[in-house]
Every structure is written in structure tokens, then in C-alpha cells.
């Protein structure tokens, strides 16, 4: 095992370097290729690429040159090629960092990416090329930012967000205003202080200072997301900081345009202030409105897509992007429009689109946003190298200090006010994390980049100061926040999935509190929430959701989702996993059924589940089971552009595999603890036996079932003695004993065959990996080799639990 890992890790380490090397080569090549490409086709202008060969042929009439067998035309592909190169670089970097587990534990990814950007920028400069204006504002605001924000908006945890909306708005609006004016004002004061020093700082007027303050004061969602995703902080703090970073966009937009406008004019009147406030309301509410309208449109469209499933995900993306662009047209808050759009469409779209489309949406959003995020951080590094800098010690240090001070004062002051209205008070620790989590990022930089040189002669100094603040927050705060969270013992996020009991009681509590409020006779927020829910159910859902699902209450929808997921897991794993609880157990239906006498044969819980399904669902699950069984056959089917017939779970396949393996491991561990700690260890199997067992696939697939059965026969050690033997016999023995459901026999049968088939496939894959561990693990007890093989065949570094959460929530 150690040997194996060692052989792996050098390759892992060298990957980033290799990626970098590749890039250098490509960049150099680009330099040398450029003139070459230009020379080879001097006559072709950009316009007639389409019929290039014909043109060439035509021209060869008078030049009498031989027909060029191989031509090099780099210009032709330059732009897309370079874009792809950047994306490739970003992806490779991300890949590289995840291959080095220790590094990502210490340094946040954002820091590493900025460093990479710095290196790449330096290399480009060394190569004598012009650094492309990578982080120019158009690219940033139109291409890089929207995916991240849409991802955040679509998967926004609505409930905690709405519950804390007041606090979030307070921080986002009042906090940002305070920061902007505090920083801007004091900065101006500092600039005026040094009369003895004839520095250029004197020339700065108040308005540019305030403009700078408003740019630098906004907390950046990209930076916050990047850091907070890694520290796994509790839900409340996460939503507070993250929500603030999203909603302060409106304030920033207004302040920015306001100050930019007036720094030309020079004077600001009371009327202008008043107009500013109005403009803020228009920008914020207008943005949300635009988002909601597009969200509802998307939901409405998705109602009719049941025949063209393949383009379903596209509607989600395109409508959201349209919302963003439409908001930007009027200088409304595009970020708020995106958030509103994503959050509005999600519940309806999710009910309408197919499971596969949903997975596609999920993965596409995650993919886009992570690539964008990576690119933004790399570009930030590149732009740092590129930009003309004007370093002014006083200005930069004062800015950094003021940012910290104003943030702390703002958070402490606001919490003091907010805590009077909050039920769950924010403690000192919370305040610290909120203040410390106020990271600045690429949005500030891009806004600074937008400034016009002739209006703001200090632009370069501003940019330098912004970059310093961004680097300071991302590097210093981003790197130290994790240890600080540990040190302060701030509550972490609970990883546990939502159980059905919790869901029942959440619903129950909602109704209960509404009822109590009604009895008290005043209308609190539970009352209005209930009203809204009822309105939603009665009218909106009917319009936006197709078919019977519109009438489905939340609890039932939740239950169905869970059941569905479970069925998928069952197919993938070959059985054994029951209700969503993580604990493997032997409790089955009969244990809680009071009426029927215990059936003669033990009933597997997993078999029971499908039999309880309502007709439609059952059909669906059956289809899955069947298609899974026929996978190999279906692959040969003709390709159809409009429907995806085959590949039932290719999308979520890896996910499930990982989870399944984790589950089996866990189950094994617990079983081992239960059984083998008290019972003398089973005689170790011979390696060949183990291998045979694994390649037959029975071990991985039917282990839990057998173990459960073994357990059920009684707690005496004798039965466990017999277990290893029963393991090694490759028969599947599953009792079908749910007398009230004849259907389950059918389903079970298919599911068993599916398991068999898959087992075979898996076995082949496993064999290559298995040879080594057996040698190392031979000395240990009989269970060890199996555990080792399981570790090795684990396809990924870790299962991303986060990915599944939206599906269940």
C-alpha cells in the first residue's frame, strides 16, 4: 500500500509542472509560429477563411506555385485556440492541486491560483510577448462572472437565506455604505494631512476617494465562495457572509456610477443624494424583478419540454444569462437579477425537467463556475504582472488598514443593532468570522480597471492599491481563516443529510407555528409564509409545473426524491442500502410492523422499498432497473439526436460508485467491529480465493445482504464462523419474502441480474489493481485484503457530498 502511494505521488506532483511546461512550450511556439503563419498565407485576409482552399486554387492560377500540401495559418484559430489554452491551463491547475492533498490543506486554492497566474504572467513577459488584457472588464463581467453567480443563485439555500434576510440586507446595504464612506473619507483626510511632503496625494479630490472607497468596500462573492467552501463553516455564518457579498452588488453599482458621474461634475447637491437613494432602490428592486420575470419564463418554458429533453438544461442557462444581460442593459444589478432568476426558477424547473437533465444542469453549473473561478484567480495574477503600477506606500498601507478597521467597526456596530431583533443572537465569535471573512476580489479589480485614465489620473495607483488589498485579504485572511476557525471552535457545518423525520417535523413545525400565530391573533412571518405557500401551491405551481406533480405536497416530493435516489443506489450497489440513514442496520420493515407476525424468511429492506411505491414511480424505477440491465445492448442502438435513450446513469455513475464503496467500507468496518473483535478471527482466505471472489463480483455487490442475514440468524459466534465460507461460494441467495407485493419479485429479479452483470464488469477492472495488496495484506486477518482492494479501487480522492445536496434538498 505505501509503495503504491509512493509510486503515485511523484506523478501527481509533476502534473502542475508538466502543465506549466506544456504552456510554456505552447506560448513560445505561439511566438515563433506567429510570423510563420503570417508568412505562409500572406494574401488571405480574415474574411475568406471559409472557402480557403478555393481561394488558394484560384490564386495559384497566376502565381503558379505548387499546391500547398501543408499550410500553417495560426491567425485563423488564434482567439479560440488561446481561450482553450487558458481554460486548459485552469483545469490542469485545478486538477494538479487536488492531486496534492497536503498542499490544499494548508493553502487555499485561490492563493495557489493567483500564484500560478503570477508565474504565467511573468513567463509571458519574459518571452517578450504582450500580456493579453485578460481581466478586462467586458470579459470579466460578461463571461467569467455570470456562471459563478448563477451557480450560487441556483443552489442558494433559500430557507436560511430568507430567515436571515434582514441581517444580510443590513450588512450588505448599511455595512457597504458605511465602509465606502468611512474608507473614502478617511483616505481623503490622510491624503491631505502631509503638507510637508509634496506628494501627488494632494491632488486627489474627495470624490475619487469616495469612488475608490466604494470600489474597495464591497465583499467579493467569488473570493468568499472560494474560501468558505473550503472551511465548511456552519450554515448561518456562511449564508450571512455569502449573502452579503451577493446583495451588496446593488450598492456598489449605484455608488460606482454615482461617484463616477459626479467626479466629472465636481459638486454634489442634496438632490443628488436623494436621486442616489432612489437609484439604489431602482437598481436593486429592478434587478430582482428582471430576474424573477426571467425565472418564471424559464419555469413556464420548461413545462413544455417533456418531448425534447436534451435541450432542457439549455433553457436554464440561457434564460439566466438573458436576465443578467437585460439587467446590465439598464445598469441594474445583474448579480441580483441572476440570483433572483436562479432561485425563482429552481423549484419549478426541477419538478418539470427529467432527472437526467437535472443532473446535467447541476454538473454544468458546477463545471462552469469552477472553471470561471479558476480563470478569475489566474487572471488576477496575470493582470498583476501586466498592469502599470504606481506604488505609493502611504496610500496602500492606509487603504489596507482602513479596510480592516472599517470592516471590524461596521460588523460590530451593526451586530449590536441587529442582535436586538434577532432571536438567534450573533456571538462575538460569529462577529469575528463575519468581519474576517470580508474578502475582496476580482470584482473590485475589474471595476477599478473600468475607470477612465483621463478622468482619474490616479487610476494606476488605485489599481495597485486594489490589488494589494485583494492579495492581502485572499492570502493573509484566506490562509489564516481556517486555523482561526479551528482555534475558536466555531460551529462547523453538519454533514448529515436531511432525514425524513426531520423533514416531517420541519413541515409539522411550520404548520404548528402558523397555527399558534393564528390563535394569538397576529400575523407574524409564519402567517405570511403560509399565505405565500398556499398562493404558490394554488396558482403558480399550476401554471408552471406540468402534470400531476404540481399537486404534490412538499413532503411527498421529498419522500419520492429520496426513494428515487435510493432506488438508484440500489441498482448501483446491488442492494443492502436502506433508508437514508447513514447507519447500516439490520432493522427491517417487520421490526416495526405490529400487525403481521414475523415472516418466516427474513425480508431485506431494500427489496421492500420499491413495492411501496405508487404506480407511476414504480414504473419509473422499473424502467431504470431494466435499462440498467440492458445497458450493453442499448449501447448498440442508433444514435438519436433528440432523445437519449441509453445510458441510464452514466451521469451520476461515478458519484454513486464512490458512495457505494464508502458505504460498503463503512458497513464492513462496523460489522468487523461488531463481529470480529469479539469473535476469533476467521481463517485467512487464500489470495486466489479472494481474487476469485472479487472478480465474480459477488463480494462487492452482495456483501451487505449476506452480512445482514448472517446477523439475523442470531448473535452466537457460530454463525459468523460459517460466514467466510458462504462468502466464497459464488451463489446469490436472496430471499424474496415480501408476501404482500408480488411486484417485488419481478423487480428483485432484474435487480439481481443487473448486479450480476455489473459485478462482472467491475471485477475485470479490479483485477489489475489487486495483485499487490494481497501480498502486503496476507499476514493480517482475512478481512484485510478486501479492505485494501476497496481502497485502491476507489476511483476518486473523495466523494463530494456537496454535489448531492441540491438533489435532496
Amino acid at each position: 500500500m505505501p509503495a503504491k502511494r509512493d509510486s503515485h505521488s511523484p506523478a501527481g506532483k509533476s502534473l502542475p509542472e508538466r502543465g506549466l511546461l506544456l504552456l510554456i512550450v505552447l506560448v513560445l511556439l505561439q511566438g515563433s509560429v506567429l510570423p510563420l503563419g503570417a508568412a505562409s498565407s500572406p494574401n488571405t485576409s480574415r474574411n475568406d477563411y471559409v472557402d480557403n482552399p478555393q481561394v488558394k486554387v484560384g490564386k495559384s492560377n497566376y502565381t503558379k506555385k505548387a499546391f500547398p500540401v501543408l499550410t500553417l495559418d495560426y491567425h485563423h484559430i488564434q482567439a479560440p485556440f488561446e481561450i482553450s489554452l487558458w481554460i486548459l491551463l485552469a483545469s490542469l491547475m485545478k486538477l494538479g492541486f487536488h492531486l496534492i492533498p497536503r498542499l490544499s490543506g494548508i493553502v487555499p486554492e485561490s492563493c495557489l491560483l493567483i500564484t500560478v497566474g503570477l508565474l504565467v504572467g511573468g513567463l509571458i513577459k519574459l518571452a517578450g510577448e504582450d500580456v493579453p488584457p485578460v481581466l478586462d472588464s467586458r470579459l470579466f463581467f460578461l463571461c467569467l462572472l455570470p456562471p459563478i453567480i448563477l451557480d450560487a443563485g441556483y443552489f442558494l439555500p433559500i430557507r436560511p437565506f430568507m430567515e436571515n434576510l434582514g441581517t444580510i440586507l443590513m450588512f450588505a446595504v448599511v455595512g457597504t455604505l458605511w465602509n465606502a464612506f468611512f474608507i473614502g473619507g478617511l483616505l481623503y483626510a490622510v491624503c491631505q494631512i502631509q503638507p510637508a511632503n509634496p506628494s501627488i496625494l494632494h491632488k486627489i479630490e474627495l470624490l475619487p476617494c469616495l469612488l475608490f472607497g466604494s470600489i474597495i468596500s464591497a465583499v467579493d462573492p467569488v473570493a468568499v465562495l472560494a474560501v468558505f467552501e473550503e472551511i465548511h463553516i456552519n450554515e448561518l455564518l456562511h449564508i450571512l457572509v455569502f449573502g452579503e457579498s451577493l446583495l451588496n452588488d446593488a450598492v456598489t453599482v449605484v455608488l460606482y456610477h454615482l461617484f463616477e458621474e459626479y467626479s466629472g461634475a465636481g459638486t454634489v447637491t442634496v438632490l443628488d443624494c436623494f436621486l442616489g437613494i432612489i437609484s439604489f432602490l431602482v437598481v436593486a428592486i429592478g434587478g430582482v424583478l428582471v430576474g424573477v420575470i426571467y425565472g418564471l419564463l424559464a419555469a413556464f418554458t420548461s413545462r413544455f419540454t417533456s418531448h425534447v429533453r436534451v435541450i432542457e438544461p439549455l433553457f436554464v442557462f440561457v434564460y439566466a444569462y438573458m436576465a443578467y444581460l437585460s439587467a446590465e442593459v439598464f445598469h441594474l444589478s445583474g448579480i441580483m437579477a441572476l440570483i433572483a432568476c436562479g432561485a425563482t426558477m429552481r423549484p419549478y424547473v426541477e419538478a418539470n425537467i427529467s432527472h437526467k437533465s437535472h443532473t446535467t444542469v447541476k454538473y454544468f453549473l458546477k463545471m462552469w463556475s469552477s472553471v470561471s473561478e479558476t480563470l478569475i484567480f489566474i487572471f488576477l495574477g496575470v493582470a498583476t504582472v501586466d498592469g502599470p503600477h504606481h506604488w505609493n506606500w502611504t496610500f496602500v498601507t492606509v487603504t489596507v488598514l482602513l479596510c480592516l478597521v472599517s470592516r471590524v467597526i461596521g460588523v460590530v456596530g451593526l451586530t449590536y443593532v441587529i442582535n436586538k431583533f434577532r432571536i438567534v443572537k450573533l456571538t462575538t465569535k460569529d462577529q469575528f468570522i463575519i468581519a474576517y471573512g470580508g474578502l475582496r476580489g476580482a470584482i473590485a479589480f475589474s471595476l477599478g480597471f473600468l475607470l477612465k485614465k483621463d478622468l482619474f489620473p490616479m487610476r494606476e495607483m488605485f489599481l495597485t492599491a486594489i490589488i494589494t488589498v485583494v492579495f492581502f485579504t485572499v492570502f493573509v485572511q484566506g490562509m489564516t481563516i481556517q486555523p482561526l476557525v479551528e482555534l475558536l471552535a466555531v460551529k462547523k457545518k453538519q454533514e448529515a443529510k436531511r432525514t425524513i423525520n426531520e423533514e416531517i417535523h420541519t413541515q409539522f413545525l411550520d404548520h404548528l407555528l402558523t397555527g399558534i400565530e393564528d390563535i394569538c391573533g397576529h400575523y407574524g412571518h409564519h402567517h405570511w409564509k403560509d399565505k405565500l405557500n398556499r398562493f404558490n401551491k394554488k396558482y403558480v405551481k399550476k401554471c408552471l409545473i406540468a402534470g400531476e406533480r404540481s399537486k404534490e405536497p412538499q413532503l411527498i416530493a421529498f419522500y419520492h426524491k429520496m426513494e428515487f435516489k435510493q432506488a438508484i443506489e440500489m441498482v448501483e450497489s446491488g442492494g443492502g442500502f436502506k433508508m437514508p440513514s447513514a447507519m447500516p442496520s439490520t432493522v427491517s420493515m417487520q421490526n416495526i410492523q405490529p400487525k403481521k407476525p414475523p415472516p418466516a424468511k427474513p425480508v431485506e429492506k431494500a427489496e421492500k422499498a420499491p413495492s411501496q411505491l405508487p404506480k407511476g414511480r414504480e414504473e419509473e424505477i422499473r424502467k431504470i432497473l431494466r435499462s440498467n440491465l440492458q445497458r450493453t445492448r442499448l449501447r448498440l442502438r442508433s444514435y438519436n439526436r433528440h432523445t437519449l435513450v441509453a445510458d441510464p446513469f452514466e451521469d451520476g455513475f461515478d458519484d454513486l460508485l464512490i458512495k457505494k464503496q464508502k458505504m460498503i467500507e463503512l458497513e464492513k468496518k462496523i460489522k468487523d467491529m461488531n463481529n470480529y473483535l469479539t469473535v476469533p478471527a476467521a481463517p485467512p482466505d487464500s489470495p486466489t480465493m479472494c481474487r476469485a471472489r472479487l472478480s465474480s463480483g459477488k463480494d462487492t455487490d452482495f456483501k451487505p445482504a449476506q452480512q445482514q442475514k448472517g446477523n439475523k440468524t442470531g448473535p452466537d459466534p457460530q454463525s459468523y464462523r460459517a460466514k467466510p465460507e458462504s462468502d466464497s461460494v459464488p451463489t446469490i441467495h436472496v430471499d424474496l419474502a415480501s408476501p404482500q407485493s408480488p411486484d417485488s419479485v419481478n423487480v428483485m429479479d432484474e435487480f439481481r441480474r443487473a448486479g450480476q452483470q455489473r459485478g462482472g464488469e467491475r471485477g475485470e477492472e479490479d483485477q489489475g489493481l489487486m495483485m499487490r495488496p494481497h501480498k502486503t495484506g496476507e499476514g493480517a486477518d482475512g478481512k484485510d485484503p478486501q479492505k485494501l482492494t476497496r481502497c485502491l479501487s476507489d476511483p476518486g480522492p473523495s466523494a463530494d457530498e456537496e454535489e448531492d445536496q441540491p438533489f435532496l434538498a
Partner: protein
Amino acid sequence: MGASQTRAEHQYQDLADKTGFSFEQIKNLFQRFQQLSGNEETISRANLDSIPALANNPIRKQIIGAFFDKRNQHQDEVGSCDQIGFEQFLMVMSHFRPPNLRTTDEEKEAMRKEKLRFLFNMHDSDNDGTITLAEYRKVVEELLSKSGEIGQETAKAIADAAMLEVASINVPNMGPEEFYEGITFEHFEEILKGLEMESRMHIRFLDVDTSTMRCGKSQS
């Protein structure tokens, strides 16, 4: 009104000590109580039943039942009564008070227990200390009672799944002959650990001058 002022004050002080409400809250609730009872001393099921806003609540029966349940009166009595006075009304309401900043951890724990006990009692209709499968099914059925036919069919399955989950969380290794009787209070606590009842199960009682506001004033 003026003559009864001092008497009322006195009475309020008593109630405030018992339930933890502030005077203003009690006053407001008393007004509501009188409004509901039609200026009677006691209130009956019919009075609560006739609240129009409650008509759409799927668990209306249980909510009203909880008001007349003697177990929720901080006494060791069992069973239900037909009429409750204002004091009992307040007692039930006091289960929905929010915690404040100065609540210690032990108090919070006690509060959580008390709130959970209230919920548990709502489910455990026959007061035998366990929520049986039949009782749990009834709860889910009530919860889904507004969603018509599909709701009723699925309710049973959901309750079964939930029960199974409780059983597998609390008694992971069970023989086939063993029988899981029902959810005891300890198990109930266990399964709802993640919900943070102490801070979630509350409503904002209408008052002009809350205790938290006053605490803020005294500090400043």
C-alpha cells in the same frame, strides 16, 4: 378598567413569573383570549375551532388538542379537559417563547427538552410514553390531509419509512424477532437533534415593549 387595574397587575405578576412572558405580552394575549372566548372566563374547543385563519391548517385538530391537553400544563396530570382558563392558555403559549441572549446553555437545553416534550405529546395521543407506528401514521396523514387522495395513500408509506429510520438510527442491530415498540422520548430527541428546536420553535409574541428591548435600554 381603572378599578381592576391593580388586581390585574397583581395577577399578571403571578402569571409572568410562571410563564416568563412580559406584562405587555400577557396583556396582549389576554385581550386575544377575551376576544376568542367572547369575554368568558374559559375557552372551549369550539371557540378555537371557529378561528377563520385556522381553517386551512392541516394539523388544526392537533393544535387545538394541545391546548386542552393537561400534560402541557406543567402538572403531572393526564387526559384532556373541555375548558381552559387564561392561565392554562398562557401555559401552552409559553412553550413558544424564544430564547434570549442571556439564556445559559443549561437553560437552553431545558428549553429544548420542554419544546420537544410538547411536540412529543402532540404525537403521543394515548400518553403511553411511545409514539407507535399507528400514531405516527396518523400524524403524517394529518399533515397531508389537505392534499387529497394521493396524500393519504403516500402518508402511510412515509410514516413507515420514517419509523424505519428511527428504528435503524436508535437500534442499529435488531434481530428479526425483535419488535420496535415505538419512538420513546429519548429516541425522539435523538432524531430531531439536527433541527435546533430551541431556536426554531418560537413565534414572535406581539408586544410593544419586549424584554429584549428593555434589556437593550438598560445597557445603553
